[in-house]
Each structure stands twice: as C-alpha cells, then as structure tokens.
C-alpha cells in the first residue's frame, strides 16, 4: 500500500496524487491507443459509444455528482448539441467551428434553464428540468422547417479539411481525444476555486453561502458547463449514429444518463466512465446471458428495461457508491489484506435528519 506523505497544500491539488497513479494512467492511455489493433470493428464501435456517453456522463457528473443539482432533462442538451451539429454541417460549416457551436448552443440552453432553476431545489428542480426536456422534444418534432420533424436528419460522415473520419478507428481516436480533453478539463476545473465552490454548494448551500460562495453565479455556471459538455457529446453522437430524430432524445434517455452517473458512482469522474461502460455493455451482457441460459429472444426490449431497473435498484440498495465505490473497496481490500474490516465503508444512516423544511 502506497502511503502519500503530504507536506504541502499544493499536494492536495495535484492532478495525480503520486507517481504510481500517473504510471497507471499512462498504461491505460497506451492500452486505449492500441485498442483499434486488438478489437474488431464491432467492439471498437462499442468502445466509441463508451467514449461518447462518458463525455455526456462527465457533464452530468459535474452537475449532479459535484454540484448536487438533479436534472431529469439532460436529453434536451444532448439533442441541442446533436441537432446544432447536424444542421450546421448540412450548411457546410466545418467541424472545427460546428463542434464548439454545438457545445455553445447547449450551454446557452443550460444557462436558460439554470437561471430559473436558481430558486428551485430538490423535487421541484427535478420536475422543472423534466418539463423543459418534454418541451424541447416537442419543439424538435414540430419545428419542421429546421429539424425536419419526425423524419429526422441524416448526418454526413465527419470531415476535418481533407481528413475524413470514414473508418471506425479514426472516429474512435476522435471520440477518445474529446473524452480525454473533457475529463482533463473537468478534473482541472474541480481543482480550482470554482470546483470547490460547486462541491460546497452540494454539501450545504447555507454553509457555502456563509463562506462567500455566490450561489446564483455558481449554480448557473454548473448548469451551463454541464449542458455544454452534454452538447459536445450530442455532436459526436449525431456523427456516430449518422441519423437523428426526436425519438432518440426522450425522457428515457435523460433517465439513462442519470442512471449512468449513479451506477458509475456519484461524485467521481471515474464513475462517469464506468457508468458509460455499464450502459453500453448491459444490453450485450443480457443477450450473452440469454444465450448461455438458452432462453429464446422474445420481448428483448422488456427484459432489457427490467434488468436495467433491477440493477439500478440493487445498486442503490447495496452499493450506493456505484461501480467506482465497489472498485475502491476491492482495491482497499487487496491493499490491506488480510486486515480489511467491513465497518470501514459502512453507510451512515441519518434518521433524525429531514430534508424537508420545517
């Protein structure tokens, strides 16, 4: 077990806690770069999906995991990014400009939601974002002159100058690049004053306010940033799927994104990536399990949704820290073997505390 001896406050703010961590991330980076050599097109495509979802996950993690604001409407920001990208591309705007534009449009929408959301908390906020997402979905379906309504828009292959991302591995590298950039950006943001303000906001609004955190400013910023990142993911998603229509951005997608960060592990960027991998791998795992058990493929969609819900239930009941929490426990178990004690990670129950205003 590696014990870090801290001798200065700067150490707490380092990007990597110690050299070992940096080493393992390096190994991971090399493995990711070599992935196209080892995997066939199908698995590489799935891995690309993991990257795209993880970008959206990082966005939602920033809002829900770090700033503590629930959003049941993130599909709207995903849609904003995807549609902006598709429409701009159809007008011949180069990708280098349309990608930031997609993020900017989504971020602007996020700010528009964030400002009224300032006065809302808890369930009111959740339902307000839900309402917002429904309205956006309806606009996408009805504003036919721009979005072509329920017919949807076909999205061309991505190209930067003469470089066309027509092969799976090319797009994979692009998605991976965006993911790494996003994760580094969010990680760096969290190391700054803004990041600490967001966490303070989550843990206690009143304490944060007393310490001089400008609630309105940081809440709005959290919504804007989160929406912007989700819009970025939306733009990539549009290119990956090559066809977008309003049905791809329903309330179920919002719930899926939320499940992603919860199952991954709230309050950790690892969680966003783990959650994305979980979401992408689950349907495959179900098909595989069915094959092993020899069950015929009737009602696939229903079984998928049921297993999805059941896993969500079991995670909340038995592993509320998500996949990342489980990973931390397993690692700790191995590090201190054989001195692991169950009580180390026991959940605190707070019966007397009420979140309701008295």
């Amino acid at each position, binding site marked *: 077990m590696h014990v870090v001896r801290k001798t200065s406050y700067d150490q707490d703010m380092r990007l990597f806690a110690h050299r070992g961590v940096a080493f393992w991330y390096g190994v991971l980076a090399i493995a990711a770069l070599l992935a196209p050599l080892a995997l066939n097109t199908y698995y590489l495509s799935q891995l690309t999906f993991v990257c795209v979802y993880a970008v959206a996950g990082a966005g939602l993690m920033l809002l*829900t995991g770090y700033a503590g604001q*629930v959003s049941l409407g993130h599909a709207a920001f995903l849609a904003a990014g995807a549609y902006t990208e598709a429409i701009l591309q159809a007008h011949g705007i180069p990708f280098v400009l349309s990608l930031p534009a997609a993020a900017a449009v989504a971020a602007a929408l996020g700010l528009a939601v964030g400002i*009224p959301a300032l*006065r*809302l908390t*808890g*369930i*009111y906020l*959740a*339902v*307000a974002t*839900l*309402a*917002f997402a*429904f*309205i956006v979905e*309806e606009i996408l*379906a*009805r504003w036919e002159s721009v979005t072509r309504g329920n017919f949807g828009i076909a999205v061309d292959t991505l190209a930067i100058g003469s470089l066309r991302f027509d092969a799976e591995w090319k797009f994979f590298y692009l998605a991976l690049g965006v993911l790494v950039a996003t994760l580094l950006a969010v990680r760096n943001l969290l190391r700054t004053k803004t990041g600490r303000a967001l966490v303070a906001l989550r843990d206690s*609004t*009143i304490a944060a306010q007393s310490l001089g955190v400008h609630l309105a400013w940081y809440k709005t910023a959290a919504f804007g940033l989160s929406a912007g990142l989700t819009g970025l993911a939306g733009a990539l998603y549009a290119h990956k799927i090559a066809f977008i229509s309003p049905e791809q951005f329903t*309330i179920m997608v919002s*719930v899926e994104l*939320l*499940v992603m960060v*919860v199952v991954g592990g*709230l309050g950790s960027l690892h969680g966003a990536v783990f959650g994305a991998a979980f979401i992408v791998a689950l349907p495959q795992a179900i098909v595989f399990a069915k094959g092993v058990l020899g069950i015929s493929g009737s*009602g696939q969609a*229903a*079984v*998928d*949704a*049921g*297993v*999805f*819900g*059941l*896993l*969500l*239930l079991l995670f*909340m*009941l038995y592993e*509320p820290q998500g996949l990342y929490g489980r990973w931390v426990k397993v690692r700790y178990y191995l590090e201190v073997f054989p001195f692991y004690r169950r009580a180390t990670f026991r*959940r605190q*129950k*707070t*019966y*007397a*505390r*009420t*979140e*309701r*205003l*008295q």
Partner: protein
Amino acid sequence: MRAFVEFSQQVLSGAALGCIYALIALGFVLIYKATEVVNFAQGELMMLGAFLGYTFISLFGLPFWLGLPLAVVCMAGIGGLLDRIVVRPIVGQPVFAIIMVTLGMGFVARSGASLVPAWGVDTHVFATPFTGKVASIGPLVASHDQLAIMTTTAVLVAVLFLFFRYTRIGIAIQAASQNQLAAYYVGIPVKTICSLVWGLSAAVAAVAGILLAPVVLVHANMGFIGLKAFPAAVLGGFGSIPGAIAGGLIIGVVESLAGFYLPEGFKDVAAYVVLLLVLAIRPQGLFGEGLRKKV
C-alpha cells in the same frame, strides 16, 4: 353561445382527465408527506392496478363490483410490501437515492407487466358498467366514464379528508408526517404507518387505473401518465393534498383547452409550460408553504 358551449365542453372533459391526474398526484403527495419519499413509480402502480382489474374482471369473469375492490385490496398489499422490501432499507439515505430506487421500481414494474403471459405488450380493454353510455347536462355531453371518474374522485377525497381528520390512524399518519422522531417518542408505530401509507397510496392508484382503463385502454406503458401527474403535484405544491387536486384539475383543463384551441402539438406540452410558468413565479407551487431553510 356556441363558443361558450364548446368551451364548457372542453372544460368538462378536461376536468375528467384532470381528476385522474389528481388521483395519481394524490398518491405522490400521500407518500411524500408521510415518508418523505418521492415515488416516481406511482404511474406504474396505477398501471398494475388497471392490469389487476383487467385480470379479475375480464380474464376471471368476476362482476365489476367484486373485481374492483379485489384489485384495490391486492394493490394495497403490493404497496405495503414494496415499502417493506424495497423502500425501508433505504430510509435515511439522501432523497436522490430514493428517487433512483423508485425509478428502478418503475422500470421493473413495466417490464414485469409486459412479461406476464396474459398481459403482454398488447392493449386490452375491459367493460365497466359505465362503458358506452352518455349523459347530457343541458347542451353539454359527458360519458358515464367521465362522470364516474369525477364522482369517485370527489368521494375519495371526502373520505380521505374524514379519515385524516377523525380516525386514530389518520391522526397518527398526520403526526408521523409532521415529525417522525417525535411520533416515535409518543408511541406511534412509524414503520407500520409508512407501510400503511404506501398501501393507501397504491390503493388510490388502483382506483385511478381502473377508472382510466376505459378511456385510454390498459397497456404496459400507461404508467407514463404519471409523468403528467408529477407536474400536477408540483404545481399544487408538493406535500399539499388540496394542492394536488387543484393541480391535477388545472393541468387537465389546460391540456384539454390547448388541444382544442391551439395548433397540434401544444396539447402535450401545455402541462409543462404551465408548470414552468407557475414555478418561475412561485417556486414552492401554488399551495406550498414558502418556507426557508434555517440553520
């Protein structure tokens, strides 16, 4: 004159739909008040209630007036069990965890219902004594289904009011909803009360489901109507029973009027637009108390 009749007709049918929203919203609010759990699976409880009604009445051929109470009692049992098995282990965790648990419950219920052989993913219909009959009140026309929905809602609300006001259990529930810890200290079995409230709420949902069945047909996704009842509960101020009823009626009427007077597409979002407008002005909902957090 004709315009006025048209308007009243829309208000009438909107109110009937609004009563269904109100009943589901009532279920949300009951659970929230007593246990501080926001139950995102309320719409699915209604769906299960409707399916049980369909099973008893259409599949087993029981008379309506026997099938209805049977379905309601079964749902009450299921509600109590859900509280005991799924919700209780998570009491004391943050609200967010509980929201996710109930969302998961909704997924499982929907998928479970579509996997039951006789239920499946098809739509079903069952006959109630009100089906196909129409009454006219002056120039207005209302189907018996709509009248039944409105009457039942009114009766149910009155009964619940009397129950909370005058019975021992009702008062105990009120006490538990005001302060669980204090309720424990004066000897109220708060755990039992929680299960009871879940049962009550599931029973109300079952009534709503069976009343709604002739209007929208029974199918595994009918629980999505709960997503409309949510704005209703929030509009009224989450945690206020009169608020839930008023919110449901407002949403129902607004939706019906928007569907009639505004271009296509506005009907589905009218509820949400109204909700956002109200929340922008009154963040605590129409009937919610404007409390501020104290340290």
